[in-house]
């Protein structure tokens, strides 16, 4: 990017502008057909948008719809553009900005493998209890925990497990839904 000027000189310089970036979660209802995930992911890749997490699964077999939850990051005008671009995809039925919706709920599930003996093992179990994580597998020197919650909660759990012998981590990425009786 241009180092001789501090202001954007043209559209080509726009990505170089330092702007405050926000995280946003979009929930999409899409037609469940081959290639639909590629349409969404390709849009992000082609236009240089970030994907922080992505979840997708069929949610209504009879209506042939799947739900994609995508977490992205960008300046407010970029997020606005992402939403507009998503709405333009023919296979996308609905787009919902979960982050801007006060009723939006976001959850993530993680499977966490921790290896340790003695005090570390006891401490891991104790922390898991505090976080209401479930033990779904154990050997004499390891646990696999299952934990759900908002992403920051999982981040803190993982950070606490790291010194206790974190071996492996698997996360679903963010899922979302709206509080209340109404559907998307």
């Amino acid at each position: 990017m241009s180092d001789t000027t501090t202001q954007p000189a043209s559209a080509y310089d726009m990505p170089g502008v330092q702007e405050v970036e926000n995280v946003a979660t979009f929930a999409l209802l899409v037609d469940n057909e081959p290639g639909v995930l590629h349409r969404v992911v390709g849009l992000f890749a082609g236009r240089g948008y970030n994907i922080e997490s992505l979840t997708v699964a069929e949610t209504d077999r009879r209506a042939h719809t799947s739900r994609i939850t995508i977490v992205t990051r960008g300046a407010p005008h970029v997020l606005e553009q992402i939403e507009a671009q998503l709405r333009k995809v023919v296979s996308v039925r609905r787009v919902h900005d979960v982050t801007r919706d006060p009723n939006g709920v976001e959850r993530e599930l993680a499977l966490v493998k921790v290896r340790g003996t003695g005090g570390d093992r006891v401490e891991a179990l104790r922390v898991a209890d505090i976080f209401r994580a479930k033990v779904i597998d154990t050997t004499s020197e390891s646990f696999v925990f299952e934990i759900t919650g908002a992403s920051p909660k999982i981040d803190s759990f993982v950070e606490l497990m790291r010194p206790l012998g974190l071996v492996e981590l698997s996360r679903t990425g963010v899922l979302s839904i709206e509080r209340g009786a109404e559907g998307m």
Partner: protein
Amino acid sequence: MTAHQTIKAPEATVAQREMTGAQIVVQGLIDQGVDTIFGYPGGAVLPIYDALFQDDEANGARLRHILVRHEQGATHAAEGYARSTGKPGVVLVTSGPGATNAITGIVDALMDSIPMVVITGQVPTHLIGTDAFQEADTVGITRACTKHNYLVKDTADLPRVIHEAFHIATTGRPGPVLIDIPKDVQFAKAEYFGPKEVKFSHAYNPRTKGDAAKVAEAVRLIAHAQRPIFYTGGGVINAGPKASALLREFAALTGAPVTSTLMGLGAFPAADPQWLGMLGMHGTFEANSAMHGCDVMIAMGSRFDDRVTGRLDAFSPGSKKIHVDIDASSINKNVRVDVPIVGDCASVLEDMIAIWKAKGYQANRQALDGWWRQIDEWRARQCLRYRPSDTVIKPQYAIERLYALTKDRDHYITTEVGQHQMWAAQFFRFQEPNRWMTSGGLGTMGYGLPAAVGVQIAHPGSLVIDIAGEASVQMTMQEISTAVQYDLPIKIFILNNEWMGMVRQWQQLLHGERYSHSYSESLPDFVKLAEAYGAVGIRCEDPAELDAAITRMIDTPRPVIFDCRVEKAENCLPMIPSGKAHNEMILPSDEADLSTVIDAAGRRLV
């Protein structure tokens, strides 16, 4: 026996409606009102070509197939056909290389919002994924460069897919839709359904009516403007001839000046005193200055492209901006606007005019008089003037004479990409929409010749001219053979300066006059080339003989390649250098110190 008949009748109907996939394609196209397809056969589309042959034998040529010489030519011809008629262009090509050759034209149609339906053959379903002969992942490759695409794996889906493809291609912001059909799906049989009998599977439903409150706010802003300007684009052309008529009416009511993007030329007549010429990088000084100094900007079907805005942080800094566009993602993309209106230009203009009349608004004559005095001062700079010559043909002069000698005829102009394209936009004066076909967004060299083929097919009696450069035209030169085959009297008017002129100009301005690979050392003899193809070749290098030569070209009822030898080192001016604002144009009078006008930052830009 009546009972027997009533039971039999529906069965007979179903039997009649049962067709092969290939026949469904042909029937679907006919039911969509298609009369012309541009294509090239190959292994994976042979069943469709067979169905075309049999349909011709049985029903006469309901569906005219134009055999091109390269699939890129088919797509550009379809674009020319679409842009000059307002109807979708249809392309039929084979799998693998057929599909990949068509990509350039598909992207071109996406960038310039041209309705197009591309049908590609595919290897049989059971061979997909095996790296079969002439297999390419066509839907994968074209997902990013189509408005929508389909791989049809079941013949029963084909009627719906074909009708839905036309619906998507032609409504909302138009664009290319591709249907990939495996060979076994073309052979298999299924029941055919017409356009009104199928149920679309997508929830696609673009908005055309502008938000009433926003439209009212926009009209109020326009009515109170002191220095308004219309900045119109290809969206006005795409909204149909009615939109152009409404634009003219609304411009007359408001008294505001009108400028247009490259894609929007012709929506507003160049002969009108309110016309400022094209804006942008090679737009007029008055159009760009008025954009910079306006207080209310009415962006109508235009998309604030970087060739138009120049330096974004200095783009029209003091104006309230109204943006009407059918594509919501075009609004607030590059430039933040004050009044965003998602809707079809014709529909919104109609609403604007109705509100203007209902509220009894009057243009602020006093303010407008001052605005027009200012504009006249800008016009007095004569930004398009050039040094005439008695000895060598100036490219600008060539376009001026071409315009003068063709303006009273029913004419259509296509172009390639480069200096000649900008000179055509500056010096050819368009009065009506759908008469100007050029590759704006993608900037595809090689667009103009096949586009002219498509235009001439749609308008057999009209004068169709491709204003070309000698470099661009060689990219799709072989399509002159198509023109000869179908007796299409297109005129290829080459401004031959032996250089890739725009590249040479940028190298002069930005790269220290180091002319890296921009000179064509081994040009063909275009006259002999024309003759070799069975067309007519004309060469002219003397300004005194130009009129006679152009007249000869016009009067020749066959395809003509006109080799117009022009000044080699002419620069296309005026110009907003990269990284500069609308009020920092280089004018012809500044040409002496061209190498110093672009700074280091600007040199990095495209």
